């Protein structure tokens, strides 16, 4: 749990945690051009190359697929957000770690029998001891990582960024927030305790 919590912060480019834990909801978001579907066909990634873009779209669409109730990652062209975040918000050193990780992702993705096998292997919880080992590894700075662990270090860092940006871009997307979550920009009265049945889905903001 720890390694991913820590990386939640890293993937969002935040070095420190919130002050008033319970008071200020820590909402992040990304803007996607989902309103103009045709843009998707002409859009060219800036940081990613075409192959990486297509691979990550497949991975993140398996992560957040289209369901009966809501669109999937691919439907919203959210790969654009990931490309933009890494391109514009990451500093050079973090971009280099991400790129090195992306090469590992491509190797493992290519070596997997299919997308499902890749997801099953890399997007599910591992045994406790293995999780603890990864926590420790990811706590290190790049220069502290042993040569033998470097590939795995890069891979895990990149996968955490991909997960983090994937989820935040999806749930902060305008369509998802306003049409699928509970969107109430000006709540007016605050009600501290009420039946969840009167609300339904999570609040968007």
């Amino acid at each position: 749990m720890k390694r991913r919590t820590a990386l939640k912060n890293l993937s969002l480019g935040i070095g420190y945690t919130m002050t008033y834990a319970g008071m200020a909801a820590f909402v992040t978001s990304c803007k996607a051009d989902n309103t103009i579907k045709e843009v998707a066909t002409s859009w060219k990634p800036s940081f990613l190359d075409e192959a990486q873009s297509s691979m990550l779209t497949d991975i993140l669409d398996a992560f957040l697929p289209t369901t009966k109730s809501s669109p999937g990652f691919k439907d919203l062209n959210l790969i654009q957000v990931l490309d933009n975040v890494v391109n514009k918000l990451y500093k050079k050193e973090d971009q280099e770690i991400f790129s090195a990780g992306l090469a590992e992702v491509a190797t493992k993705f290519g070596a997997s029998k299919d997308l499902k096998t890749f997801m099953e292997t890399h997007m599910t919880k591992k045994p406790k001891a293995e999780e603890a080992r990864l926590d420790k590894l990811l706590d290190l700075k790049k220069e502290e990582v042993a040569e033998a662990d470097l590939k795995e270090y890069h891979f895990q860092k990149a996968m955490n960024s991909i997960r983090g940006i994937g989820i935040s871009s999806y749930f902060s997307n305008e369509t998802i927030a306003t049409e699928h979550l509970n969107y109430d920009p000006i709540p007016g009265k605050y009600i501290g305790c009420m039946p969840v049945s009167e609300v339904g889905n999570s609040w968007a903001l």
Partner: protein
Amino acid sequence: MALFNEKSPLEYDAIVIGTGISGGWAAKELCEKGLKTLVLERGRNVTHIADYKTAAMDPWDLENGGRLAEEELEKDYPKQRRTGYTTRPEWVHNFVKDSEHPYEEEEGTRFDWIRGYQVGGRSLVWGRQSYRWSEMDFEANAKDGVAIDWPIRYKDVASWYDYVESFVGISGMNEGLKQLPDGKFLAPMDFTCVETDLRKQMKSKWKHRMLTIGRTAHITSEPEKFGKRGECQHRNRCMRGCPYGAYFSSNSSTLPAAEATGNMTLRPDAIATEIVYDEKTQRATGVRIIDSKTKETFEFKAKIIFCNASTVGSTSILMQSKSKRFPNGLGNDSGELGHNMMDHHFQVGASADVDGYEDKYYKGRRPNGFYIPRFRNLPGHKDSKKDFIRGYGYQGGASRENWQRGVAEMGYGQKFKDDLFKPGPWRIGMNGFGEILPYHDNKMELTDQKDDWGLPLVKFYTTLRDNEMKMREDMKDAAVEIFEAAGYKNVKPFERSYGIGLGIHEMGTARMGKDPKTSVLNKWNQIHTVKNVFVTDGSCMTSAACQNPSLTYMALTARAANFAVEELKKGNL
């Protein structure tokens, strides 16, 4: 607002330096009492409502997902970013760039100087938690033999707390506690279901520990008493500026009141560089400023001066105001100017999972949390005594997790995704805010280095000591103890990196006292030896208590302004 222009006079009845929480109050009180008042602000003008450009933006309206690039953060905000929240594009314009306003820290130490240079100052972005001090806070130094005694007691400020609370509008509950006096409150904000549970459990389980709702400067009822200000809409976007004027800021509240008198002239972009002292009259004659944009200098004259430039700002101005009589800074006969820097230390507490209440939720984004008032070292309660002196309170909240839990939970696919649309399990967390003692060696100095306006850079020398470190251990342990006693699961303590100043409650560097040999200000916030200069921001504090301090600054400011005008009328100033 009546802004200063080329036709404005150079001479006034009063000058107020600074437009933040305390400067706004000084402006309002002096103008309402009929004084022609020049109000100086070093930052840009901010017009209430019209300049809150991000107030209605949703996450997807903000560029780059509402985040700044790492390189920009490192270059422009290396210190402001230490809070973790000030540098988000929705409100980063209400904080300074460290690259434009640098400062120094003694090697191996840290001071987090978080600043907002604009009309309204940090009253635009403050945490809004508003608590009275109690008798035990004013008596503490004398009883413990720490530093010097306060020259005032609770009875001296009680009626001024009433006065400012009635104007500010503070939502909260009266609880009849000795360590946290009752006040004049508007309707309290609701607890969430889990918070109500914890309040009930604490009432039955603990002798001194109780939980109340945060007392916060928001209008939650009786809006008719507050003029143009409206009721809180529970959007929790306060730091962007509130288009409803629902929370108290200088911009929404005190400056409009000052403006309404016709007595205020506001001058933004005016960096006060010096308070001018006249040896013959033993009074200050006025204030020199430098225009932050044109770098032109001006000298304004007035009968009384209120210095409300924030703790470090006011102290720097006094230090820069050197004369033959005061070679070490205005009013600094004691040598205490710049010393005794305090704050509230925090970033230590606990969090837990709460089972049950899956059928309960809430509506709205409450800009507030719960508060557990101090329960350690309460006079007359031996069982609350610990191996440190003074105490701390907790601020926290219980809410349901949202989709962000999906980052930490491994999983993927349809069910994983669809589950994230539903409210998650309940979580509770709280953070302690503890008292820091006044240590002579925790100090700020002016260096030989200069900023873009030729003014000396500030250097800080501040560290936590033994009493604070022991208190932090207890802040962690007691938080765990409270959650475990309540039967919450997976209770985990936390302690995060903290530097003095991070609480943004820096105070104490021009303290009040009875004796001019050991303090800068007297019991009326008046410089002992320069009677027409008043300092009523955080720098005046003799000890820090553990409550959020702004309400006390407001009460002391209103009290000092009332005194100043009476003295002026009597011909004493």
